[in-house]
């Protein structure tokens, strides 16, 4: 068994030796390239070394890590290598250095080369070996300029080196080093470090207060709340800066809730916003979920500004007090109360909120209406429903809007009845509500009302059409209604088809463009011309190319095709160009042709240039063609540079106008700069 183990050990050693040799060779190859002047493969050499470092730093690769770290420290120590390579090697030791590299790093830390010295300090700061601290301490004793000492103090602080407290403390009297020293002592945080910091704090060293807070924070986070509490208490009771004392109160709230509770109340009544804020933060910490209940009790006795602050923090437990202050004469307090009720108010709040929501438009009215739509308290929907049936008209209207804002569909059928009521306010409110929560079930009735001239019903139906899921049902209802509608109403009916959109809506409208009824035909063409989807270009092209079409309809169709080709993000540019070229073949009037030519320039596809150049000599169209060609050439992507250049040259040769010549020349100069004169 022993011999077997010995064999395995020998094999491991052999493998490790082989691996180390491989690493050595790789590093030998890479390091000179790191320092070389910029060359094509330099970044790759850096990347390769970093990858190597990453690879050996993986868990379970300790032997490889140690081997590479040893190689790197040897390289960093070698004066034969360029400085940049040595620096790069040291940087890697920040990431993988351990005991094997401390000796080499210490030599560099004590050397004359400032850059390498700094790199060694950084690497030692990250080096977990205890010997690294000995080296850093020794360097601090040896001394140096301000920055050097500051760096060493920082490194020792980062490592929380308890043995360096005495060594560091003398620097607390040095104004240049005192803040760094206090910071480091704060990180070390031992009893000895604390004593030094208290001495400094008592002598007016402001950084010492912050450092003591840091120590206390660390103690609290590591289950030493009692020790932390003592620091916080002492700081809070001190005559130090207010900012430090309030920060101590925040710490005290975490570590000694009972004591903090006693301190909160007087601060809550302070005039100073900062003091009140500190008290509120502390209250949240010490009372936890009970904070709202406790703070609500204080509400009546607080200043106006204090009330506003507390209202923003309350939950449902503070509803009675919130309702009480909602009657305040101060608008800011009333608004804050309403916003609070919008978070948690229940049925008790509805009468008050509804009364405000039913008033004329004002910030208060807006806030109350919003609060009613948002609050999740119990019984709100039921109370609102009661108001819808029983209240005064303005309250009924406000209640309908609130229920709609709460997506409550329970009363939709009743609202449909209200929509046809003679009272215009009630009818409008019901329609507004149905516009928000109505479905296909209410659409037909609203459509019928719309055809009778009830404008809010039209708007509600339009809203439902926009979001409906059963498009076919909506389309059928609109088409059915269109048979009975007069010319004035037809337009809005087809607007609904536009709102429905999609293939079904489009097909229905396209079919109506050939309807025997001229009014229906006209309304359908106008709806089609306003269509938002590119798919509409197909029936629009048919319309534009149909010799039977009225000239006005053809022009509308061309205008829509141009708009959709220019503005649509889909389909791809080539497909949009194809449609525009088809439109060009279909157009009769010169004005329409100009529009289509301008659209070619707006679609960044080189093939468009082939068509444009055929019009550059046309006296009626050359201006539009030239402008479109300039726009197109300027907008072509980099891959079409040759095409853009050719277009610019054609444009220049065509000599359409001085302005276009200038644009062409500018583009030629940009794309094909003249060769430098020899």
């Amino acid at each position, binding site marked *: 068994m022993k011999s077997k183990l010995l064999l395995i050990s020998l094999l491991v050693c052999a493998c490790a030796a082989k691996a180390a040799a491989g690493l050595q060779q790789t590093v030998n190859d890479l390091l000179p390239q790191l320092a*070389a*002047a*910029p*060359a094509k493969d*330099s*970044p790759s050499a*850096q*990347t390769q070394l970093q990858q190597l470092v*990453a*690879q050996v*730093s*993986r*868990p379970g690769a300790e032997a490889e*890590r140690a081997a590479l770290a040893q190689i790197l420290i040897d390289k960093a120590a070698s004066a034969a290598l360029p400085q940049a390579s040595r620096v790069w090697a040291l*940087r890697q030791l*920040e*990431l*993988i250095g351990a005991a094997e590299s401390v000796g080499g790093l210490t030599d560099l830390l004590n050397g004359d080369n400032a850059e390498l010295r*700094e*790199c060694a*300090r*950084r690497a030692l700061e*990250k080096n977990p070996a205890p010997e690294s601290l000995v080296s850093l301490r020794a360097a601090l004793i040896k001394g140096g300029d*301000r920055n*050097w000492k*500051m*760096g060493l103090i*920082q*490194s020792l602080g*980062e490592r929380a080196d308890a043995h360096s407290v005495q060594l560091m403390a003398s620097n607390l009297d040095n104004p240049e080093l005192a803040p*760094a020293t206090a*910071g480091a002592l704060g990180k070390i945080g031992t009893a000895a470090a604390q004593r030094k910091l208290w001495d400094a704090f008592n002598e007016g060293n402001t950084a010492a207060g*912050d450092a003591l*807070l840091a120590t206390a*924070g660390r103690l609290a986070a590591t289950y030493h709340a009692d020790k932390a509490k003592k620091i916080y208490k002492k700081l809070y009771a001190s005559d130090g800066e207010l*900012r430090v004392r*309030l920060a101590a109160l*925040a*710490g005290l709230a975490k570590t000694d809730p009972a004591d903090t509770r006693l301190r909160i109340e007087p601060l809550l009544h302070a005039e100073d*916003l*900062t003091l*009140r*804020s*500190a008290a*509120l*933060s502390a209250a949240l910490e010490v009372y936890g979920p009970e904070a709202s209940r406790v703070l609500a009790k204080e509400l009546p006795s607080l200043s106006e500004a204090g009330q*506003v*602050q507390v209202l*923003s923090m309350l939950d449902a437990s503070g509803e009675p007090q919130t309702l009480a202050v909602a009657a305040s004469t101060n608008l800011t307090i009333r608004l804050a109360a309403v916003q609070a009720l919008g978070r948690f108010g229940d049925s008790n709040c509805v009468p008050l909120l509804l009364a405000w929501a039913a008033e004329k438009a004002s910030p208060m009215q807006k806030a109350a209406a919003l609060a009613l*739509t*948002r*609050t*999740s308290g119990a019984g*709100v929907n039921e109370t609102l429903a009661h108001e819808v049936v029983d209240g005064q008209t303005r309250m009924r209207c406000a209640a309908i809007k609130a229920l709609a*804002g*709460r*997506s409550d569909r329970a009363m939709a059928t009743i609202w449909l009845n209200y929509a046809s009521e003679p009272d215009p306010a009630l009818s409008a409110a019901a329609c507004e509500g149905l516009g*928000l929560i109505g479905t296909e079930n209410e659409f037909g009735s609203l459509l019928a009302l719309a055809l009778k001239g009830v404008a809010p019903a039209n708007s509600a139906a339009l809203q439902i059409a926009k*979001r409906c*899921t059963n498009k076919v049902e909506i389309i059928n209802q609109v088409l059915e209604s269109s048979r009975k509608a007069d010319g004035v109403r037809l337009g809005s009916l087809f607007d609904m088809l536009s709102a429905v959109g999609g293939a079904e809506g489009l097909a229905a409208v396209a079919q109506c463009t050939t309807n025997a009824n001229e009014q229906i035909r006209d309304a359908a063409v106008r709806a089609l011309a306003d269509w938002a989807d590119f798919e509409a270009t197909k029936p629009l092209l048919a319309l534009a190319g149909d010799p039977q079409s009225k000239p006005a309809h053809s022009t509308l169709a061309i205008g829509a095709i141009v708009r959709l080709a220019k503005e649509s993000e889909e389909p791809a540019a080539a497909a949009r160009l194809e449609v525009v070229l088809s439109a060009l073949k279909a157009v009769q009037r010169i004005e329409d042709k100009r529009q289509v030519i301008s659209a070619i320039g707006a679609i960044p596809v080189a093939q468009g240039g082939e068509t444009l150049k055929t019009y550059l000599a046309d006296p009626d169209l050359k201006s539009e063609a030239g402008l479109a060609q300039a726009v197109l050439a300027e907008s072509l992507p980099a891959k079409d540079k040759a095409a853009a250049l050719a277009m610019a040259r054609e444009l220049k040769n065509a000599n359409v106008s001085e302005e276009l010549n200038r644009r062409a020349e500018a583009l030629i100069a940009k794309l094909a700069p003249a060769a430098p004169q020899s």
Partner: protein
Amino acid sequence: MGLIGMGLQMHGHQRIMTGREDVQVLAVCDVSRPARESARERVEKAYADKTASGAYKGCAAYNEYERIVERDDIDAVFICTPDHWHAMMSIAAMKQGKDVYVQKPMTLTVREGRLMSDISRQYGRILQVGSQQRSEGAFRKACEIVRNGWIGRVHTIYTHFGEFPLPPLLEEEPVPEGFDYDRWLGPTPWYPYNQRRVAGDFGGGWRCFWDYGQRKNGDWGAHHFDIIQWALGMDASGPVEFIPQGWGGAEYQSYVYANGTRVWKNHPVKNGQMIQFIGERGEVLVSRQNRLETTPAELKTRPLAPGETRLYESDNHEGNWIECMKTRQTPICPAEIGHRSATICHLCGIAERLNRRLVWDPVNEQIVGDELASRWLDRPRRAPYIL
């Protein structure tokens, strides 16, 4: 208010701040003399244009941010520097009782984030991270749809934001007159000056270098990871696993939450959108300029019912910060949220550079079972620029 870092990103903020009636910019700060002088002129001109005399002087221009932090008449600082300065400046300002707006990503390292969040809470300061997508309606709606389960359990998320070119090895160039290069580098390691290293450039510049940030992870990633955290309700936590591209044959980099939801980074997203949430019952696609698509389509206009999760509403990220400074309420993207989102940027970068899977404990904020990877959670700092 004091403005720090007067480069490209600050221009818009500066206009907004000088345009507000409730803000007075008293100082600007930049390590480039021309940049800070020109910023001072812009600020003074903005105020001069509002005066009857057409003249205004009263904006200081500093090289050192400490000059702003030590002024008692300044209540807040706006920080738009490269990432490696964010924590140091923010912490110094907060300790001195100032509120802070800091650009995303909030930090350079994970540990900086924990520190900033704790200090913000302990010192009672209002800190807003510049993850302004939270203040865009479409992103909020997308997150509410996901959060309220309207598309069922979300199992997969795609986000795409590309990659910067790798940083080149640069030749040393003379440092321009009036440019404090040592201070630009700040806590990061010293390198010879080259303009391409310090360039503020949305297409790259200093953002290409790992020394100053997490490359695209910390650039666009900081925005999109932040929205994903918001949507999943993970603002106080984070993923548990980070897998680099190529690990186990993975075609794309990803990270995974404890419930199994996986986020694929740089995976193509449908319709060229920025983020795609895929749930068991539907999808949400969302981008800037309020581009929002949902399946089913009606989700994007469906109102929230009482009792459903209603997320923090802000339609003006800077304005929200200013309001919160006045009321002392928590802003929409406070330090803890910024820290948790930045942590994802950092861990994506670390996994990518180590080329191995990392297991993350979001409660204790530690990498599990990988001692050497844990060293990457913070970086040594160059004196005198220490935390």
